[in-house]
Structures are given as structure tokens and as C-alpha cells.
């Protein structure tokens, strides 16, 4: 079967617990006083998403803060299960959402690369074989056996970026950070990223930075309040999105 992703009528409503985590004490008191339990407030992050991504497509997702971009990326990556609709994925999918997931400052660079490697789906033997190349590229060979708490921020990012871009996937889902933001994009790093994108069959990229997404993508969707408002060629979608943004906040905000 060919590599593809298909979302049918996907909706996601999640409980709002960020400021109000549950406590047993509260539940018990409410029960004892026969008070009604606090009703859970919910947030609808996505609704009615129909999206089919085929082999060879590089899909960019743009939208304002809180439009549901990251949530959609997590649904595609299988981290969030939608509360409505279905997600069908064929192919090995790897999400790159945060630089240095699971890096532990107490452990050495080498040990961290091993954990990060198993997260990317490599076996311990595979990642051991790859490790020297990773340290060479990141120019951290002398520091491989130093706990990363002694690394500078730049060194840590370099190691995390190099490890993550070692990924071997059919489908890659990238959030903000990997689009550029945090990484000082040196020429070699861009090349490495491009290599990764070239050997990946489907790329889904989330970003604020329309310029950057435009460079990489051949298809783009624009998300607003959890719904797809436009789906098409990057230039057209970016133009419409920018016009809309200009209308909403005034032209100076775009500068």
C-alpha cells in the first residue's frame, strides 16, 4: 500500500484542566456535602477536518496562535486521539516537535543520544552504530562522554538537532522549532535538514513563519479556530492568510 495519511471528519474536544487540576479532596468534599461535582469545561480544538495527504506531498499548516496547528500535527502523528472522526496512516511516522525530548542533563551526550535514538525508533545497536557520525556532524566528539549539563546551550541544540535529523521515516511531522526558530541555521544544518526531507515521503510542517514553510512545501492549509479555511498551493494560501491577518491587526503587525 502507498504511504498516505487520511483524516475523515476529525474533531478534537479536550478537557480544560490546565488551571484546575482535579483533587481527591475536592471531589470528596463535594460528594460529602452532596454538592454537584464541578462541571468540566471543554475546549474544541479541531472540528470537521477532512484531509488526505499523499506520497510526495509537503504540507504546510499555517494559522494564528491557538488556531489548532499543533493539535492537528499531534493528531496526525498519533499522539492525540481525536474525539470524533478517524485517522488513517500507512507508513512509519516520526514527529519532531521539540528539540531534545527526553534529554537528561545528568547523562552524557552519548547516553542521551541513545535514549533519543530509541525514541526515533532505532534499536540500541543501530543507534550505537550511528552515534559517532552524529557527534562528528555536531562537532562534539570530545564532549561525547561529558554530562550535557556542562554543555552550552548551542552545543545541546546542535546535538539534539543532529540526532533528530537522523530519523528514518516515511512520514515526518515537524512543529515550529524544527522549522528554524530556535536553531541557528548554518549552511550544513540546512543541508542536513533538506536531506532528511528529501528521503521522507510525506512531510507535514507547522509554522508561523510563512516564508519558511513556503520554501519547503508544495501544498498548504490554513487553519482558523480549528477548521480548515483554505487548502491549496502555498502562494495562494499564504497570500490569503496574510491579507486576512492584515485586516485583523493592521498592516504594521506584518512588518
Amino acid at each position, binding site marked *: 500500500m502507498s504511504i498516505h495519511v487520511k483524516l475523515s471528519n476529525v474533531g478534537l474536544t*479536550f*478537557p480544560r*484542566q490546565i488551571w484546575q*487540576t*482535579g*483533587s*481527591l*479532596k475536592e*471531589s470528596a468534599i463535594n460528594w460529602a456535602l452532596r454538592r454537584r461535582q464541578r462541571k468540566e469545561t471543554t475546549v474544541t480544538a479541531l472540528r470537521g477536518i477532512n484531509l488526505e495527504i499523499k506520497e510526495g506531498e509537503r504540507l504546510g499548516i499555517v494559522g494564528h496562535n491557538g488556531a489548532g496547528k499543533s493539535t492537528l500535527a*499531534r493528531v496526525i*502523528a*498519533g*499522539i*492525540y*486521539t481525536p*474525539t470524533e472522526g478517524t485517522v488513517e496512516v500507512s507508513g512509519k*511516522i516520526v*514527529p519532531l*516537535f*521539540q528539540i531534545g*525530548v*527526553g534529554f*537528561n542533563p*545528568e*547523562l552524557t551526550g552519548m*547516553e542521551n543520544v*541513545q*535514549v533519543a535514538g*530509541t*525514541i526515533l525508533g532505532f*534499536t*540500541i545497536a543501530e543507534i550505537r552504530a550511528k552515534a559517532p557520525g552524529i557527534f562528528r556532524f555536531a562537532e562534539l566528539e570530545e564532549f561525547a562522554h561529558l554530562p550535557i549539563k556542562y554543555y552550552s546551550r548551542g552545543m545541546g541544540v546542535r546535538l539534539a538537532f543532529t540526532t533528530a535529523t537522523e530519523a528514518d521515516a516515511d512520514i515526518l511531522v515537524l512543529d515550529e522549532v524544527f522549522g528554524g526558530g530556535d536553531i541557528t541555521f548554518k549552511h550544513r544544518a540546512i543541508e542536513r535538514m533538506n536531506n532528511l526531507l528529501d528521503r521522507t515521503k510525506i512531510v507535514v510542517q507547522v509554522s508561523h513563519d510563512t516564508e519558511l514553510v513556503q520554501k519547503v512545501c508544495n501544498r498548504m492549509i490554513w487553519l482558523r479556530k480549528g477548521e480548515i479555511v483554505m487548502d491549496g498551493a502555498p502562494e495562494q494560501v499564504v497570500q490569503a492568510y496574510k491579507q486576512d491577518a492584515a485586516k485583523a491587526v493592521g498592516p504594521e503587525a506584518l512588518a
Partner: protein
Amino acid sequence: MPFSQFRALYTYRQLVRNLVVQRLKIRYRHSALGFLWSILNPILMIATLSFIFSHLMGRYGVHSYPIFLFCGMLPYSMISGSVLQGGQALIRSEGFLKNVRVAPVVFPISIVGDLGVNFLLSMAALMAAVGPFVGLQPSVAMCVLPVSMLVLVLIGSGLALLAALATLYFRDLEHIFEVVMRAMYFFTPILYPLYPQPGEHGLIREDHRVYFELNPFYHLVELFRQPIYHGEFPEARHWYVALGFGLFTVVAGSVLLRWRRNDLIFRL
């Protein structure tokens, strides 16, 4: 199906292994004494308690109090570690759970793995280093210890799963668990024998003993104490209760984890 959790563990076995090794390294690094420090703690406790209570416990038929103590203390500290550290397992793994595809079961189980290795090392070290000085006798019955260890890991895993999941929904459980585990330490016959030697007076009132029998941790402790301290094979009822409790907690934990699998990520 509770088996889905086992399958997930198998799928992510490399990650589990790495996480366990990671925890062990952090635990034992940082000092030349490394591992020694982690058995110094039980040794110090045992020495202190022995100094204070040896004479008293002798009256109730306990003749080699240090051995008697460590048979109870080590399994119990593994159990309370599973509940307390296991309870934090999912919350502390937010970075993983929200950014990579991974089965949540991996995190509490890695903690139990780390505690299990530590338990084994401490047990072996104490038996080898301290045993000869306090009159530890090797016995045939000790060959059941690997099975006792399996039961211990089973109970630890089940409790870690349940605690980790429950803490996501009720954050104040963290403090409640601490109080409960401390109370259970005294309710479990660790520092004292539940039954007297034949013909002697008991420490626990005869009509209260039945309540202690209801505590699964008592039966778990006996799976270690009878072979090590008494040199006897554990009685059948200890096996039944401890194993039954272990299976129950593991199945309950797995079922609940599966039931909440889509929702738990929103509770982190």
C-alpha cells in the same frame, strides 16, 4: 484486554531498557562509593533499629533481629518506591508523552525496573557483606527467592501503574500516598513478628492478628522472611495472597490504563 499493555512494553522494550539504565546510572554515578551509598542507608537503619530493639524482640522469639529486619525492609522499600516514584512517572514524562509517540505504560514500568535492580543488588550485598556477621545460614529454601522476587515485581508494577494513573486525575494523591505508605510500614510486620514462637507470648494481641492477615504486604514480606530468616519454604497462603494481589493490581492497572489511554494525555 490487559495484554495490550504487555504488547506495548514489548514494542518499546529498547526504550524501557534505556530508561532503566539511565536511572541506574544517575543513581550510582557521582561518587566512587556509588552503589555503596545506596546500601549504607538500609545498613544504618538496620544497625540503629537492632541496637534499640534487639533485646526487646528477643523476648518475642526473634533471635537474629538484623536478618529479620532486612527481610522485611527491603521488599517494603521497593513497594513504597513503586507507589511513590511510580505515582510521579506519568506526570514527570510529560515531555515524552506530548512530543513523541510512546505507550504511557513504559514510564511506570521503567521505574519498577530500576527499583527491582536496586533491590536485587542491595539484597545480594547485604546477604554477602552483613549476613556472615549476624549469623545468616544458607538454606535450601532460599532457592524460592527468585519466585518471591517475581511476585514482588508483579505487585510493584501493578501499584506503580495504578498510582501513576490515579495521580494524573487527583493530584493531591501524591501526599496521600506518602502518608499511607508510612502508616503501612508500621502496620506491616516488618519491625516485629506477627506470631510468637510456640509457647511464648505474642507482641500483637491474638484477636488483632486477623487484621494483619488482611494486609497483602505481610504475605509478601513472608515470601522473603520465611526462606531467609527461618530457612523454610513459605506457607501456601502467603503465595496465594501475594500472587493474587499482584495479578489483581497488574490487571486492574492495565485495564484502567487502556480505558483512559486517549484521555490521560490531556491531564498531564
